[in-house]
């Protein structure tokens, strides 16, 4: 769980507000994952998150599944109204607006 990844280099002298990889740190990472996925974090925080994800398989798998979730939501097709339903609904609305009822 704590294996360091050699491809990621820590910037010398960089201050990190949450050093280490304890469970508390993972919790902090989890709180920011949507902002990370949506690319809303400042670059230093992004960098720190990436470093953590590279070194913490738990968080890495977790973010992958969160990304999958977002991808699925973005691509979920929704049924469209048929032409006849569209026409019927239009008539219902016109009728309801004339009768003044809130149905």
């Amino acid at each position, binding site marked *: 769980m704590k294996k360091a990844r050699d491809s990621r280099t820590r910037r010398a002298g960089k201050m990190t507000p949450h050093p280490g990889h304890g469970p508390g740190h993972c919790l902090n990472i*989890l709180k920011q994952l*949507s902002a990370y996925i949506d690319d809303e974090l400042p670059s230093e925080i992004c960098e720190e998150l990436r470093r953590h994800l590279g070194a913490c398989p738990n968080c890495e798998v977790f973010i*992958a*599944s969160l990304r999958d979730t977002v991808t699925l*939501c973005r691509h*979920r097709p929704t049924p469209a109204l048929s032409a006849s339903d569209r026409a019927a609904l*239009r008539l*219902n609305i016109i009728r309801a*607006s004339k009768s003044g009822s809130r149905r």
Partner: protein
Amino acid sequence: MPRRTANTPPDDSQGPDGFDKLYRDHVDLLYRYAHRLCGEVEAAKDLVQETFLNAYRGFRGFRGDAQVSTWLYTIASRACMRMRRKRKGEPERELSLDEFVPTSEGEFRLQIPMEGLTPEEAFENKELREALDQAIQKLPKKYRMTLVLRDMEGLSAKEVGAIIGASERAVKSRLHRARLFVRRELSARGITQPGHGSETPSMRGSLT
């Protein structure tokens, strides 16, 4: 008199021609939104009807500086909040971040069966499709609305905030919780990738 922009409906929206244009231009968008919120055809139609009736009545209050679609999303969202839940599901409640924090390594490692698949391919898995739809419907309404507007309708956090009457910060916080909720629902079901024959030769031992 509201300021007119290219996006606003014609002045005569109170008349039949104005209504027809508003309806023709936006019914598909509203139905899609309503279907995503309600998860079923009849409730979605009810919501679309309610939305157009309210839009029609409230047209004079329409602020010309908003896009028509934003205005309609707003009316639909309010109407949805008023609609009673007809089906049983999660009661309206706040989602806390803590409830989504995995407590075991196993929970951390739960996955969604779409490794190496496009979303379209993943959705060929009926179990996954249904699990996603059910997870979204299980979300408390205001979280569902936020997730639908942001991740399904593709609006920005700012636009969503304007529609549901919340700050951008609140939208982002709700969105994150809603996503965590859906992730947990999807991953905890233990859905496996069904066999795609020779299309996925690298699949590991999940074939039944």
